[in-house]
């Protein structure tokens, strides 16, 4: 039987606010344990939470960017459970009445656009961290992270494959980074996700029994865990078994999902409205103000790149995946570069160099103007496209402008027909056998001849002229 996977993701995004969600403590990552705490975030008796308005603003921004309805009236709730990293014995979250609902985002899979529904986005506080070290019969608790604001973005079960899941995650990450509400850093845990997975026979309407895979903190793990889990479920069904509804964890070392100990998941969270915080009322005027302040969002930008610059969907999708990258591209275009040529250089050599150096586009030593200047040298025939590759690498390495590099290294293209003719003649003299064979009909040797001429001219000969001269001399 053929099966179809049904996947829904719950993405937790750590918000980029300076202060925590309910107190004034810093959210900085990596400080000494328990140095960013106060009576409020460590749950001392009698203290009260006060909502950081920035958190609400960030949630609304995200809601608008994902086409959600922003609730004019929403509220916080308490999620009750005992754990040492949860100092109050409950997490302040949202349950009924979240801040955003009924949204969607577009993903591009195999050139096709697909909409993934967003059920809800809610705000909540992060817990602390238990640290198990020192070997004794005890653990440490670091409460620096306690109260750091999180958004939970819950998708509809609209995702049908691990690839779609990845594309959806990437799209969310792109949107969050565009908005500046989350850095999307998965290694540091600022973006992590839980996945709900089930499978059903192709064509069946009803959902199968689902499992939840907790705490996936990289795109790779999301993909691998989903692939594994789908296969596991299909195997069980094919053997006539039943899927157990349960929470599972991805075991990175063994590359499998495995059930969480039942004790850890047997929670009744006893949600109820948080009485220490008044319900949140959001005025339409504020939503409008926030809306106006938003940057151009990735989907809109992508459409504009296609229609405005004549770029293919593929190029546009890649160039708009990060706002600084799109900005880099547009800066180059505005300086007079040809859009597709710029796109090619970015997607080719530039991305490769940046990846090798694990640099972001913002840290790129090669500036848009330098690329555009180099493109002009190609256009006016000063350098060949081939030489340009060398020049480009030199600009990237040294930061020097193309013209200087070309001069210093003597990379100017030879367009003097006399010099090229001499080189062609030398080549013909050195390779009489090959010339014989060419004349005998072995036409593919033309490439070899061009290569030999370029070698003699150290790659500087104008390739078009070489071609023309060779054709003339050998015919």
């Amino acid at each position, binding site marked *: 039987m053929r099966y179809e996977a049904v996947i829904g993701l719950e993405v937790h995004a750590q918000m980029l606010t300076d202060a925590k969600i309910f107190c004034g403590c810093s959210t900085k990552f990596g400080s000494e344990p328990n140095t960013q705490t106060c009576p409020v975030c460590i749950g001392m*008796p009698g203290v009260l939470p006060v909502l950081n308005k920035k958190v609400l603003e960030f949630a609304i921004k995200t809601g608008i960017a994902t086409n959600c309805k922003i609730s004019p009236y929403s509220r916080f709730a308490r999620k009750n459970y005992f754990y040492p990293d949860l100092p109050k014995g409950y997490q302040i979250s949202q349950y009924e009445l979240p801040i955003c609902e009924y949204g969607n985002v577009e993903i591009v899979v195999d050139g096709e656009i697909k909409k993934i529904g967003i059920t809800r986005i809610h705000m909540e506080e992060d817990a602390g961290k238990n640290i198990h070290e020192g070997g004794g019969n005890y653990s440490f608790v670091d409460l620096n992270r306690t109260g750091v604001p999180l958004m939970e973005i819950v998708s509809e079960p609209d995702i049908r494959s691990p690839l779609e899941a990845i594309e959806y995650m990437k799209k969310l990450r792109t949107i969050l980074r565009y908005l500046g509400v989350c850095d999307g850093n998965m290694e540091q845990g600022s973006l992590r996700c839980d996945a709900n997975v089930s499978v059903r026979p192709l064509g069946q309407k009803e959902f199968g029994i689902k499992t939840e895979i907790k705490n996936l903190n990289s795109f790779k793990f999301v993909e691998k865990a989903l692939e594994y889990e789908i296969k596991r479920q299909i195997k069980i069904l094919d053997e006539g078994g039943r899927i157990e509804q349960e929470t599972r964890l991805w075991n990175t070392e063994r590359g499998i999902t495995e059930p969480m100990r039942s004790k850890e998941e047997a929670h009744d969270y006893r949600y109820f409205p948080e009485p220490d915080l008044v319900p949140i009322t959001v005025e339409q005027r504020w939503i409008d103000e926030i809306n106006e302040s938003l940057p151009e969002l990735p989907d809109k930008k992508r459409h504009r790149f296609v229609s405005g610059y004549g770029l293919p969907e593929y190029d546009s999708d890649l160039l708009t995946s990060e706002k600084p990258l799109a900005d880099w591209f547009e800066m180059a275009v505005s300086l007079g570069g040809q859009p597709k040529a710029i796109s090619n250089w970015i997607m080719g050599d530039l991305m490769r160099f940046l990846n090798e150096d694990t640099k972001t586009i913002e840290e790129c030593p090669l500036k848009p103007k330098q690329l555009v200047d180099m493109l002009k040298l190609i256009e006016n025939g000063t350098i060949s496209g081939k030489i340009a590759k060398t020049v480009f690498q030199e600009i990237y390495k040294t930061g020097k402008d193309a013209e200087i590099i070309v001069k210093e290294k003597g990379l100017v293209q030879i367009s003097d027909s006399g010099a090229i003719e001499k080189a062609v003649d030398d080549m013909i003299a050195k390779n009489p056998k090959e010339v014989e064979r060419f004349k005998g009909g072995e036409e593919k040797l033309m490439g070899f001849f061009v290569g030999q001429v370029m070698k003699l001219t150290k790659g500087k000969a104008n390739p078009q002229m070489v071609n023309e001269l060779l054709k003339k001399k050998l015919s």
Partner: protein
Amino acid sequence: MLNFNNKSKVFIEFETENQQLNHDNSTEENRLKLYSLTISEVRDLLERKEVSVKDVVTSIYERIDAVEDRVTAFVTITKDEALKIADRVQEKITSENIKSTTSLLGIPLAIKDNMCTKGIRTTCSSKILSNFIPPYESTVTSRLIEQGYVLVGKTNLDEFAMGSSTENSGFHITKNPWDLESIPGGSSGGSAAAVAADECIAALGSDTGGSIRQPAALCGVVGLKPTYGRVSRYGLVAFASSLDQIGPITKNVQDSAILMNIISGHDPLDSTSAPLPVPDFTAVLGQDMKGIKIGIPKEYFIEGMDREVGISVRDSIKKLDSLGAIPVEVSLPRTGYAVATYYVLATSEASSNLARYDGVKYGFRAEGKDLMDTYLNTRAQGFGAEVKRRIMLGTYALSSGYYEAYYKKAQQVRTLIKRDFEEAFKAVDVIVTPTSPTAAFKVGEKTADPLQMYLSDIFTISVNLAGVPGISIPCGFTSHNLPIGLQIIGNHFDEESILKVAYAYEQSTDWHKRRPNL
């Protein structure tokens, strides 16, 4: 409904005479006894420089030395610190020639031990917080500090404010100064007893279902629960967050207004505190009562109410009538659901509020073989029986499968109770009821029967559910010489009306001047 039998009248008159005698005998003595004065009286003396702050503070501690071993109103007495503050405050008065009339400069007050005081142990009368010293000050006490008050000590309460007799304290019980074999009411029993026994000039209590008003009634003093949101809860150790409110317990209505002026107002640290301007509550004292409509809810004069309490309250209504007020019968039809609603909501919130006492971060810890064991041991040994009972009740009410039937239903009923009051206040300015169905009962009398104990708050609970303000003032005594309290309830953020009515009543009677014989 306002029919009074002759017998009760005779009784009241007799009591009044008796009270008058008492008062006359003690006036001369009281002049020398600074501890027996009110806030405004102490202020006057300090301002006229007839006494020093040290005189006042010393007098209070002499009084404490004399009676505290019998009353046991305090959990912590902060004498050394108080004397130091007294010196500092005195210097301020002398050197800067500050007039004390608008402040609390040098006034010794007692604070219920569920309000956090920086550097001073704050226990909630619970073993689980017996060693807890807050590194922060509650907003109310910060405001008192700004006004130059002197902290006498932290008063006893039912553990985590859960109770109506102060017998649930994890440390010791507090006695009613009027009868040392009786309870002082609760949960602010320590504060009410300390005020009644003159161990402080006034005190702060907290009221979740009657915890200020009921002990004030049982101890013959004035207790005011402000509108929910009028006073910041920051630093008040939470019992039930949507019901808790801090308020003054004082010897008369004027002092209540004075303290309300200081503790009221929005606090950026408490989102549930109302961003509303605070009126001068003393300005309404002495205003004319003519035309004020006094609602008498028919559902409050129930069977099971003590006969003498009923008589006193009816007499009080008659008194208000004679002062120019107009008694009007009103109905609060959902009154019968209040106790059940309260015990579902308050315990639900409490079950969550008290989760933080887990032995991990601060307070008492009973080490176990693993984490779960430590949790269980800590909470089993750290909490008393009543607290555990309420945590279990609340946990149950919030549990999946029961939430709709209990918590959610109770929230809906709460809305209806609130609406009852809104309806009633369309027709009247204030509502008058007994504060408690009985006067103080004997120690141990109701401890075996939690339900009976819960009914002590039957007249006060609705006020918390509705979020409206209520005051209890002395309105008579039983034949056993135990105080009876009159509750005056106002509309949202209309503490002025209840203070005005309370003051008019008080000024026309002498109940508040009577003192227990200790």
